[in-house]
């Protein structure tokens, strides 16, 4: 008889330990598997994602926004977008959800060692990059200078404020911008690309990590190319509809690649070989 095969589709129960409200649309859920031994042994890498189950809602892929350097729990930062994420926003501390993972190709942290890292994000796009920033900060001498450029719709939409403050205090160059100002906002207004203008970067030792809505993504790519970034120096993480998470169901197809196993992290050089909406549109 063949050996029993692990049921890769079976979620495990995880408990909400803490909820951080980031803005009216985004919350960060701090989670731990109910099975303590499994939780203790659980490992992941920045850039990977989990498939989250909510009762009667099926599953959705959510990037892990915490750093593996602090095991014991995982953070999922979630924007209210559909049925499942809306249900998640109704969760309270102590409630349980289903989780399976981690899945996907992570950010190549080995290759990033020693380099200056430029993070460019819009809205919920900071969630996967948060994992990298936190991870870098936990390994102080391993990486070069860290810069975070973050765009939001309005000042009250700025998510991850406590993180941004903390990072700032730890020496990260954090710069914010909003599409539309509100009374009391004296910061930058406009596209996140405008923040790139004032940066003094060491181009040859920099790598950019980008995550945000398609329009912002394309604008940032153009600007980085103008600045002299090669396609190999730009990394991003792709968002796709997913079902299996393990490269079988093919919902996340990207012109021959699958976001769940070939990504979600890609270099721009890899993406340029593909016909995808993010680059064509």
């Amino acid at each position: 008889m063949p050996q029993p095969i692990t049921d890769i589709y079976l979620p495990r129960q995880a408990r909400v330990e803490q909820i951080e409200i980031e803005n009216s649309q985004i919350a960060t859920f701090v989670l731990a598997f109910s099975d303590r031994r499994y939780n203790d042994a659980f490992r992941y890498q920045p850039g990977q994602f989990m498939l989250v189950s909510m009762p009667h809602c099926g599953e959705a892929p959510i990037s892990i926004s915490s750093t593996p350097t602090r095991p014991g729990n995982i953070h999922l930062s979630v924007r209210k977008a559909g049925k499942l994420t809306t249900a998640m926003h109704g969760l309270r501390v102590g409630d349980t959800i289903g989780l399976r993972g981690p899945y996907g190709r992570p950010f190549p942290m080995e290759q990033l060692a020693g380099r200056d890292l430029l993070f460019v994000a819009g809205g919920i796009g900071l969630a996967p990059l948060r994992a990298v920033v936190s991870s870098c900060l936990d390994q102080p001498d391993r990486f070069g200078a860290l810069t975070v450029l973050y765009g939001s719709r309005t000042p009250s939409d700025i998510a991850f404020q406590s993180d941004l403050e903390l990072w700032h205090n730890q020496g990260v160059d954090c710069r914010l911008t909003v599409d539309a100002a509100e009374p009391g906002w004296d910061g930058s207004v406009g596209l996140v690309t405008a923040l790139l203008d004032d940066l003094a970067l060491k181009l040859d030792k920099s790598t950019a990590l980008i995550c945000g809505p398609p329009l912002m993504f394309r604008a940032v790519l153009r600007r980085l190319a103008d600045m002299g970034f090669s396609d190999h120096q730009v990394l991003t993480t792709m968002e796709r509809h997913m079902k299996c998470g393990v490269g079988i169901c093919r919902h996340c197809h990207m012109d021959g690649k699958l976001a769940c196993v070939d990504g979600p992290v890609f270099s721009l050089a890899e993406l340029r070989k593909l016909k995808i909406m993010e680059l064509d549109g």
Partner: protein
Amino acid sequence: MVHTAATDSHLLKKDHLKGFLRKLAKEYRLVAPVRNRHGDVLFTVIDDLDAAEIELSEPPQNSLKQFFLPQQEQLSTYTVTPEGYDFHPVQATIPPTIYFGVHPCDLSAVLYMDVVFSRRQRDPFYLRRRHGSVLIGVNCNSPSPNCFCNATGSGPFLEMGSDLQLTDLGDRFLVETGRAPGQALIERWQGFFSPSADKDRAAHYQAFLEARGRFSRQVHVEQAIRQLEADTVEEKIWQELSLRCQDCGGCAYLCPTCTCFTISDQRLDAASGRRLRSWDACTFAGFTAMAGDHNPVQAKTAAIRQRFTHKLRDDVRLNGRPSCVGCGRCVSICFGGTDIVRFVERVCQGSL
């Protein structure tokens, strides 16, 4: 490809086929192409061997896909109790099954599915059904008008992949042994078989040559593969095809190698439900739609491009051969005339 039967092949007289199947049916669930009372030939679980009209010369309307990847299957159940939200695995026992009378196209499709469901991750639900299954193939002497397995390298005769491979030689079958379980069946039921002679092997080769000559279509799959790889398929071909695609998903459902699926929850009551996996089709707009109505596959042409590019370019890159097995089922079901043969023909015309 060499299509000479090995010298250790056997003969099974047609008169003895039912007797052989009866022996097999004692230990296995038996699935074979059966003509039903409406005249349709379908792979069917045979309960009563004497009542079943097994039809080997006409390709069945369904493939074996549904037996290994059911149209819908339960992955787990879940409960929501004061203690929390829990998933419970399903315990199902799949009886060992013999699939008899499998044409080369459908056999090739199973071999392709084996790769899909075990390359990156071992899919427990597929493999549970696949383990303990025995494939008895039958080489195809009479391709149907829509068949083109000769162009996809998956027929009309197959050399390997099955456990036993039969060739119709009139009053008898030439039986070649493939994998070990097939050899074991022959050894166990030796009485039904006799050794083949040179003339049988010559007849087998003759049958192969004749079958090869019976294809009514010349479909230049190779050329479409080359053009997709070189990215020289004209945009207007995609536009034409996507305008004509009626978005019914019939091609994907009937296709023996379309294995895309979706997973969804079925609520039973407030506190419980089932997690189901069911067939899906990459041509549906909803296949890639994300929460909040955003869809990364927006262009009208993108969905149909995905369908053909996956089968004829991506899988060639990955496996060295296309995942279209030339069974022609999509040709017969397609509403709009946007099946894979139409695509290949358009690509070839476009390059004239």
